[in-house]
């Protein structure tokens, strides 16, 4: 038998999806699963209409409405005209082209990166794209999943392929035991704070190590979700028993013997002994604490007990201008601590942290407690299924007693596109993924943190070290 070159899991999946590799061209990569939503698809469907072509394979495409949707009174027409038009355009396009749509009110509706996994549409070994950068979430199942632009959405609708150059590979290994009050969101915020918001640009990341493999699927998704926040094309985790157990029995997963056969295939999806990466980073789980961001990109993060750097402590002089501008926007002083700082809003939601496990974590912490009077707290489930599950488990009662508002599913206050916005100048502790200027609404100020840290802050009304509670 000839000796094959050892490959990373990323290379195995990529190479098995190349339909055509031609000199002077990027690879034509076959896409197994395409998710679409109302914001980045209308112009792509227009392109198909102009060319007079159909969707290549509708069974590989799934649509939902999430970015623009209100999280209250979803049974009523969307109030805002442009948002309503965009959702209606999605409806029309899905009908015309025969694409399955989980529309508002449907039992499967929700944030696109939450519903894919929970419906079993997301599986190991696949290639998955969506016109949304947080498509990297799906990589938690051991697949190649990445965000694309609308021209690329059109490519995939038209041909089920995308033209792509193979990115470089990076391994991020985290070993050791996480401390008290530290959850997967802290792991990823920690990594990004160490390597910066562009530290993995050009790379596809594989997360490994026992601190990763010991995590649940929900927790793994949180980590892969934020791969893009360090610039990575995507991030994946090799599938294992935790993965298979999560998928087993889900709506669109293979069933019975077909599932067992798939699992045997999926077990081969791991990086070969001796395979090499273009970059390898390693971190110790014990060094990670509850994290919080203080600036206007996700790389500007620190342990909640640390203080914001001073100008003199910046690594590069070129950062000074952006750093100063960022802190001015946030209304914060270099060198100061955030602990005890009053906040105005708490947002628990988004494709990063709105799965049932996140809501359970929050409920467990706030059970029997009430929110501080200075904060408004929104809990926005990632999908209708998460919402229903939360109600079945009685989490809604716990939230209600605590003064938290449990809303209906959608992207909500993660991106300031729908009705849910943080007002100008207000501080919000958010479990979402971006703290960019104006991200949660014009002039809003965002502190990114874990659901646990957000829950603790909701109770005290201030930036809090969650370890006081656990």
């Amino acid at each position, binding site marked *: 038998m000839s000796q094959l070159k050892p490959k990373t899991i990323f290379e195995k999946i990529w190479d098995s999806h190349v339909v055509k590799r031609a000199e002077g061209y990027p690879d034509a990569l076959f896409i197994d699963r395409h998710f679409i939503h109302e914001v980045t698809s209308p112009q792509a469907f227009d392109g198909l209409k102009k*060319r007079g072509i159909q969707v290549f394979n509708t069974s590989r495409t799934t649509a939902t409405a999430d970015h623009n949707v209100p999280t209250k009174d979803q049974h009523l027409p969307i109030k805002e005209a442009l948002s309503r038009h965009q959702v209606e355009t999605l409806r029309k396009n899905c009908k015309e082209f025969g694409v399955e749509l989980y529309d508002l009110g449907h039992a499967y509706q929700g944030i696109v990166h939450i519903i894919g996994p929970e419906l079993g549409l997301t599986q190991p070994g696949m290639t998955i794209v969506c016109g949304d950068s947080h498509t990297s979430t799906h990589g938690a199942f051991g697949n190649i999943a990445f965000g694309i*632009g*609308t*021209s690329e959405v059109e*490519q995939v609708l038209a041909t089920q392929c995308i033209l792509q150059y193979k990115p470089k590979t990076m391994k991020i290994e985290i070993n050791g035991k996480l401390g008290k009050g530290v959850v997967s969101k802290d792991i990823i915020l920690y990594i990004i704070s160490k390597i910066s918001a*562009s530290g993995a640009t050009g790379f596809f990341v594989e997360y490994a190590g026992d601190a990763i493999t010991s995590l649940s699927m929900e927790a793994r998704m949180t980590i892969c979700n934020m791969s893009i926040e360090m610039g990575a094309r995507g991030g994946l985790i090799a599938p294992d028993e935790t993965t298979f157990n999560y998928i087993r029995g889900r709506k669109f997963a293979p069933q019975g013997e077909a599932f067992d056969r798939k699992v045997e295939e999926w077990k081969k999806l791991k990086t070969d002994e001796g395979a090499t990466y273009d970059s390898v980073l390693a971190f110790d789980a014990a060094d990670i604490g509850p994290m919080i961001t203080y600036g206007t990109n996700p790389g500007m993060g620190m342990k909640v007990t640390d203080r914001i750097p001073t100008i003199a402590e910046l690594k590069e002089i070129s950062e000074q201008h952006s750093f100063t501008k960022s802190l001015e926007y946030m209304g914060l002083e270099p060198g100061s601590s955030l602990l005890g700082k009053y906040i105005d809003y708490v947002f628990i939601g988004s494709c990063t942290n709105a799965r049932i496990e996140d809501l359970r974590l929050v409920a467990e912490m706030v059970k029997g407690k009430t929110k501080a009077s200075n904060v408004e707290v929104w809990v926005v489930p990632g999908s209708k299924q998460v919402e229903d599950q939360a109600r079945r488990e009685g989490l809604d009662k716990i939230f209600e007693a605590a003064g938290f508002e449990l809303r209906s599913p959608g992207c909500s206050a993660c991106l300031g596109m729908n009705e849910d916005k943080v007002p100008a100048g207000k501080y919000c502790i958010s479990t979402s993924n971006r703290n*960019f200027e104006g991200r949660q609404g014009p002039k809003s100020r965002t502190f990114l943190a874990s659901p646990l840290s957000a829950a603790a802050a909701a109770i005290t009304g201030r930036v809090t070290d969650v370890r006081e509670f656990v």
Partner: protein
Amino acid sequence: MSKDKFTTLKTTAVPLPNENIDTDQIIPARFLKATTREGFGDNLFRDWRYDAENNQIPEFVLNDNKYSGKILVAGKNFGCGSSREHAAWAIYDYGFRVVVSSFFADIFKNNALNNGLLPIVVSDQFLKQMLQAVEEKPSTEIVVDLENQILQVGAVKESFEINKYKKTCMINGYDDIDYLLSLNKEIREFDVANT
């Protein structure tokens, strides 16, 4: 659809030295609601250009009459964040044809190239010099020669890298779908074999 062809460009530039300019700054989410590709230029850098009452913020470069031209020169890690192609559409719609930076986020770079907007990567050092040259003398003439991959700022020439395939697309106004559609038979076979 074929895009505008890009060969050479002689123009001036607008300097925006901020680093990590994310696509939420380029075009905030609340302006992503159109269902066509046109008109996004009006809201390019919306919250840096206008205050809450829609008055122009005079200090912002796009409101500064000193600067004009079809090249935007920006700090490193330009276009990070969301995959919204609307960011590339907004920059193009406003009238820019080139963005120069020392580092671009991946998805933005692809989106730009897919829309006839040329992202040019230069060294940190060259970027600094270019920003300085434009700020000191806004009328500095800049020439982009895509065929020969040369960026000329005043008298200083710098060569830049661009992927050969993408260069051909830009020069001829091709897009990726034309190529992929030509692979239809192979893709069908692949799809059937992998279902």
